[in-house]
């Protein structure tokens, strides 16, 4: 009885082991492998960014990082306090450390301070015995050799924050510590990042790696070649000096951005491994808004820079001819309206431009009255339509994030946004690029390209090639007009620079190439009906902005410029910047 029971039970148990080991073997082998083999990601090297001549603009530098493995630290808080004493850690450092810790797998080091100096490395080495769980890692960090020269264009990478990566993308960032936050770094994040490598490692139950089983190498991020010319950028930045404002230079044949300066500038290197709170507050709260990329985010009244475009619209719509003249007494009045719309020349000379102003002279001398009349003839909606052809009021689609679109007012726009109907006087103000109208320097550069090329503008792009493969220019604007019309408008723009009465005559001396340009003076504060604009009486931030748009050479243009100088008084402060850039560009060896 007992023996029979024993035999049965032993056979039953033996069958259990047979079932687990032989019948279900495959299943448990797989389970065992899942236990044993951990898949670890290997971060790729981020793609570098170079200018058109191959100068390095964004690179990866080896640097030393202080890291803590929390599980190995005997008393984490105490270690953090000690490190704070030794290295002067900021609260931001510790905050970012705590955030990073949440995203780490157990038993992996969490970065605390990047880019250790030699002295800091020495301090850590000497105090190693009291710093349990502390290690120094060597890794590649992003570096921008040109510093603040390209801060706005390149943007920067920063440590990945909680909100930077959404759920669907989390897998792509496993093992990656930095992400493009703004600028080209953000716009081309997916291209620059590269593909994660995978290494399968054998781990024990505590997650400690014992052996590498196999490894798929990461795919390095793509190299970006920019249209940008670092020397032209340097010239532009130097020419801007301390002035606030923006400069953008485009290659009219491709839309390539040759230079883009937003002033004041900032150094993107500060952001790479966490900017201190006080440094950031200073940048953020500064009245000069250094973090704003004025090239695509600064919105200013385009002022007289739209006059060549409106002239072309008038000719195209047969509202004026090349020979049409308009008397300029220094002001303009609408029939039955006592209000006088003044010409800027009135303040300067006390009279109007001339008894008979034609289109060419009106462009060259920036005659307001001519364009009041033309605007009145066009009416607001045709005016808006013709400026829309030049891209005013629409984003250019440049390869940077957070571009602003400006405002192209129309009667429909006013009803929708302001909630009231349009009246005629407003048309006149818009006719000289003031009033509700706002444009970014990039928009004006694109519009100027459409002028320079006689109608064709490509989408502005910083990136010329990705990993050596050229990026095809993308058509953006197409404006058609008779050749004679283009010629006439160009003549006015050439006169702007080269005729004695031209508003940019000051930049003429010594020119060795042909330039077409147009100045603009954007009012920041409205001037009352009979008050005068007294620059001295206005605070710095209320003074007029200066514009200058230009292209050269006039026939077969190679470069298009838009320069804006904030609160500089007027266009005369903007064209010297353009002159410096054109001189460099037209004389460079290619």
């Amino acid at each position, binding site marked *: 009885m*007992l*023996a029979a029971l*024993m035999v049965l*039970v*032993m056979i039953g*148990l*033996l069958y*259990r*082991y*047979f079932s*687990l*080991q*032989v019948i*279900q*073997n495959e*299943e*448990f*082998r797989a*389970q*065992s492998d899942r*236990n*044993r083999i951990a898949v670890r990601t290997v971060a790729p090297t981020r793609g570098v960014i170079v200018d058109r001549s191959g100068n390095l603009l964004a690179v990866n530098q080896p640097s030393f990082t202080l890291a803590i493995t929390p599980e190995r630290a005997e008393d984490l808080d105490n270690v953090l306090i000690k490190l704070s004493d030794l290295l002067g850690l900021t609260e931001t450092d510790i905050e970012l450390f705590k955030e990073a810790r949440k995203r780490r797998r157990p038993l992996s080091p969490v970065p605390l301070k990047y880019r250790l100096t030699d002295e800091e490395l020495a301090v850590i080495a000497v105090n190693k015995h009291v710093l349990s769980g502390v290690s120094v890692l060597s890794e590649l960090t992003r570096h921008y050799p040109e510093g603040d020269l390209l801060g706005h264009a390149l943007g920067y990478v920063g440590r990945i924050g909680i909100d930077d990566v959404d759920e669907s993308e989390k897998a792509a960032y496993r093992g990656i510590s930095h992400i493009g936050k703004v600028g080209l770094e953000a716009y081309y994040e997916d291209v620059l990042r590269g593909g994660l490598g995978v290494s399968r490692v*054998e*781990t*024990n*139950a*505590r997650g400690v790696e*014992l052996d590498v089983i196999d490894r798929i190498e990461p795919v390095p991020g793509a190299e970006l070649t920019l249209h940008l010319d670092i020397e032209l950028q340097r010239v532009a930045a130097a020419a801007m000096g301390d002035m606030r404002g923006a400069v953008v230079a485009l290659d009219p044949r491709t839309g390539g951005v040759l230079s883009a300066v937003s002033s004041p500038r900032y150094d993107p290197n500060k952001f790479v491994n966490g900017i201190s709170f006080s440094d950031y507050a200073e940048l953020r709260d500064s009245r000069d808004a250094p973090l704003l990329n004025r090239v695509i985010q600064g919105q200013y009244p385009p002022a007289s820079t739209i006059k060549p475009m409106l002239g072309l619209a008038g000719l195209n719509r047969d509202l004026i001819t090349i020979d049409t003249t308009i008397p300029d007494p220094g002001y303009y009045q609408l029939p039955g309206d006592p209000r006088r719309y003044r010409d800027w020349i009135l303040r300067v000379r006390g009279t109007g431009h001339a008894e008979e102003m034609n289109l060419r002279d009106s462009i060259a001398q920036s005659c307001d009255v001519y364009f009041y009349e033309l605007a009145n003839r066009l009416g607001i909606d045709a005016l808006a339509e013709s400026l829309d052809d030049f891209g005013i009021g629409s984003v250019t689609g440049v390869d940077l994030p957070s571009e602003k679109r400006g405002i192209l007012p129309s009667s429909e726009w006013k009803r929708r946004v302001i909630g009231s109907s349009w009246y005629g006087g407003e048309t006149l103000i818009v006719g000289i690029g003031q009033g509700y109208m706002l444009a970014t320097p990039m928009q004006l550069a694109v519009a100027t390209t459409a002028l320079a090329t006689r109608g064709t503008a490509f989408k502005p792009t910083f990136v010329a090639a990705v990993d050596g493969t050229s990026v095809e220019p993308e058509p953006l604007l197409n404006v058609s007009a008779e050749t004679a019309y283009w010629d006439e408008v160009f003549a006015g723009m050439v006169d702007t620079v080269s005729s004695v009465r031209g508003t940019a005559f000051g930049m003429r001396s010594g020119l060795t190439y042909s330039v077409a340009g147009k100045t603009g003076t954007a009012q920041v504060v409205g001037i009352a009906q009979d008050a005068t604009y007294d620059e001295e009486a206005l605070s710095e931030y209320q003074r007029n902005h200066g514009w200058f748009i230009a292209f050269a050479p006039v026939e077969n243009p190679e470069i298009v410029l838009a320069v804006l100088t904030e609160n500089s008084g007027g266009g005369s402060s903007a064209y010297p910047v353009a002159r410096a850039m054109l001189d460099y560009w037209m004389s460079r060896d290619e």
Partner: protein
Amino acid sequence: MSNDFARVAEVSSRELGARVRLLQVLHIDLWLVVPLLVLIVGGLFVLYSASGQSDVMLNAQIRNILVAMTVLLITAQFRVETLRGVSPYIFALATLLLVAVAFFGVGAKGAQRWLSLGFIRFQPSEVMKVAMPLALAWWLSKKALPPDLRSLAMAFAMVAVPSGLILQQPDLGTSLLVATSGLAAIYMAGIQWRYIFSMIALALVSIWPAWVFVLKDYQKQRVLTLFNPESDRLGAGWNIIQSKTAIGSGGWEGLGWTRGSQAQLDFLPEGHTDFIIAVLAEEFGFRGVLLLFLIYAVILGRGLVITWRAQSSFARMLAGALVATFFFGLVVNLGMVSGLLPVVGVPLPMVSYGGTAMVSMMIAFGLLMAISTERPVTRAMR
């Protein structure tokens, strides 16, 4: 002493071969000792691998084995009649020690199982593993067989008190083993079937109060986990999942000695103690498991043969109880590691690391050898 001389004389007079005579003199039963040695030596290999190639643990276990083998040989020298005589005293002492544990015991992990005498720490519950079958065999052999209701009631009380004391330590595994050894002795006394059935009925009825009042939370958790290990993958279910994985991944041939990833990479908890069969299964495969089962089968078979051949009712009941206890411990261990039974903390006999269990096991085999080698003499005495 005169009896011993008589026994030696008796044996030689029968002109047995010199080898058999020597074994007889030393009270060694080859059918038990050889498979035990094979098991112990094989077990050392498994333990070495399971402990992560720890020489320290290997040496300690070898010391345990040497002590246990000595105890085996010493125990085997006792005359059955002598054993019978001291049985009630051993039982009384063991019970007192268990009471002492309840009051003065030391322990770890929330269980109070150890008694410290300053120079030595030991588990009185292990003493009871031997004392229980001895005492029951003594008690029941005093009465006419089959036992009447009164002596049965006393027998059950003798089982219940120590088992209860051990259960509240708490140590469910040992408590079950001790109770089994007592009940097996009662069974060997020729208990009537109606009693057995009423016992089973009583046991079933008492499951509910036992669940509510007796079992600790962690013990309940083990039982629940058995039915659904996935419900608590990282907690109580971890052991079962990992041991099943280790066993299952071994396949037919095994992964090779010291090559089992579950065991070597610390996924398998308690791999050197209660779960050592999983290490063997992973590294030596089903072939190894089959061999292990065969060795155990030889030991159990020999135990049954000794039981059947036992000349006194005391010896028969004692041998039967010891074999049944050994069998029960084996089944519980093999069952719990393979996920058939709750995890109750019973070691794999002769293989798991640990000194106390090894010694008490060897005492049991020593008793069996004493019974087996006594046979010719008792016949002569009559």
